[in-house]
């Protein structure tokens, strides 16, 4: 009896280990690509995301503990451009994992094929934190979510070609979901087309373009430069002149400066979700837009 139990336990362990070995281990730089990888990879993937959803993706500390995850990963998904330039390359080098280095089958740049906005014609840091390839916050347009999903599916198919049909089926479902949801999101936002708003940091251009908002100014005088008193005076004037109702910001920025503007003008500060996991209710990529659109429409009504 005992021997039987031990044998069963051993068999179960072996099976569990085999099934884990068959699972594709994916490390993503952010929670949004984690969510999309899970939606495409389904039960074939085990995904770990480095940045949390309430963290500024520009400033992630390259902790050595992430190297452990990267060293055993089969696939690495980066948002690319220069968004993670401050931390992703050093982690990749330290991982000693050939499967996920740039150019390897397991390296996925989610930005490939995305039509970028705000591509600078010249690079001048006097303009603040300028991104040389264009604004990197492209996942905030759900249409771009489909391109990200395509890139991730292609990566998964390179790593695990035997599951191609499975990934393609999930990709199709994802695209259908996005298409039908975009209709609903756009309809919800349609009454507010052209509505003027203020944003804290220049990270909403894709969302703004997709859903027809009009960001007239930023709390930061230049990208990456904290709000100055003269900028606050300018914002207060703009809010009053344009009858602006909301300032949108992200969980990782202090609201101290927008609170000052609120006191002076009555404008509302909305802390929006810039990524999956920004708030407990934002569990996946669809929730991200559900949450933000609900916030904005409720505030603008």
């Amino acid at each position: 009896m005992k021997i039987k139990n031990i044998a069963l336990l051993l068999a179960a362990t072996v099976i569990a280990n085999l099934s884990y070995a068959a699972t594709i281990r994916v490390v993503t730089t952010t929670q949004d690509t984690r969510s999309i990888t899970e939606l495409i990879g389904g039960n074939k993937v085990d995904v770990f995301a480095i940045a949390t959803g309430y963290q500024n993706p520009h400033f992630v500390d390259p902790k050595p503990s992430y190297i452990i995850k990267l060293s055993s990963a089969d696939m690495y998904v980066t948002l690319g451009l220069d968004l993670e330039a401050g931390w992703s390359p050093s982690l990749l080098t330290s991982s000693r994992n050939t499967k996920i280095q740039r150019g390897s089958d397991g390296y996925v740049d989610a930005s490939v094929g995305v039509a970028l906005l705000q591509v600078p014609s010249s690079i001048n840091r006097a303009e603040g934190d300028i991104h040389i390839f264009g604004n990197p916050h492209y996942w905030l347009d759900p249409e771009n979510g489909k391109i990200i999903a395509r890139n991730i599916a292609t990566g998964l198919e390179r790593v695990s070609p035997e599951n191609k049909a499975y990934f393609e089926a999930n990709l199709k479902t994802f695209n259908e979901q996005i298409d039908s949801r975009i209709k609903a999101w756009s309809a919800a936002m349609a009454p507010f087309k052209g509505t003027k708003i203020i944003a804290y940091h220049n990270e909403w251009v894709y969302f703004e373009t997709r859903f027809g908002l009009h960001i007239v100014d930023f709390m930061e005088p230049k990208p990456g430069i904290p709000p100055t008193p003269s900028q606050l005076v300018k914002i207060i004037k703009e809010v009053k002149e344009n009858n602006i109702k909301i300032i949108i910001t992200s969980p990782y920025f202090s609201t101290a400066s927008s609170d000052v503007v609120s006191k002076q003008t009555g404008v509302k500060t909305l802390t929006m979700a810039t990524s999956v996991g920004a708030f407990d209710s934002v569990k996946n990529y669809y929730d991200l837009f559900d949450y933000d659109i609900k916030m904005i429409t409720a505030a603008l009504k």
Partner: protein
Amino acid sequence: MNIKHILLFILLFAAVTVQAQSKKQTKAQIDSAKADSIMLQKIQAEMSQPETPAAPQARAAASANPDISVIGDFRGLYRSYGKHNFDAVLNEAEFSFQSVIDPYARADFFYSVEEDPKTGKFSGEVEEGYLTTLALPYNLQLKAGRFKQSLGRINLVHPHALPFIDMPDVYVNFFGEEGLKGDGFSASWLLPNPAFFQELTFEATAVDPESPLFERSDANNFLYLAHLRNFWDLSANSTIEFGFTGVTGENIFGNRSNIGALDFTYKWKPVQFNTYKQFTFQNEFYYSHAHQVGNNIVNALGFYSMIYTQVGKRTFLAGRYDYSNSPFSNTFVQQSGSLTLGWEATEFQKIEIEAKYTTMNQPMAQYNNEQNFSSAFLRWIFVIGSHGAHRY
């Protein structure tokens, strides 16, 4: 015949145009009730078209060159002894070139030009120039070239990235202002420990001849180093790191010196507001066992303990206590306390001021034979180009 055709054509065109216009008017009148929904559709159609996107291929061009940057380190210095006790120097201009070589390796070069405050003349050297493999099996990585060695915590960090201006006394007395560096090989192994990060490094080098302790040997006596780095996440916001280092090599007396080092760092940095708040408690202990002339053995030690905290969005404060023997005299004791206030304009520019008080139990010629003295430093760091990330 021709005129007839032309007239017919004109009549036909006029009729079609009139009919189209009247249709438009009628349609507009009939569909007036549906105008809102048409407008809605138009808005939706407009919104589904992204605004003047850039061609995706435009981004490939910028990545052909290595990442190049220049870091300026301008300093103002004051000390409470000597006739000439103020100085202003471009302490260092560091030129870095970093890139992946091929699928198997990457290269990092740092060329440093330093100014001698006495003469105002500059001298340049390859501070570091090494290759790092990317494709070795079994979690191994090899480094070859000239590099800063895996000793403790601060030795691997370039001075401009440290939160204080002058280096700790024990570090200067044992290894020199530039720290421990040499030419050779470094092999590191990421231990297969899923619970926490462990990295074991072995290095064999011909040491930098500027080292005050070790000698670049005339014989085949290289410097050997072993370093074990251990790192835990205590929580999402706090981490702890322990490191052990052992070094052995030929000292300036032509005999052997052994160094044992221990480093301990606690960091707290809230993930959500990591650009606003942080706290670090960092310590390094060094123990030296030196065989001198006539096999006379001297055991000496030294350490520093530092607290570093962010006091504002762009303001930082670091306090440090130093204790140090000389590696060849444990009767010599040097102690100091320092406070550094830093202001970071952006990731590419910071200004720091440091005040330091030093006391020694024996006079030293290099400090004008003063046993107690004060010093103050101003440092302005400025970076152009794409300087990469620093080690955590």
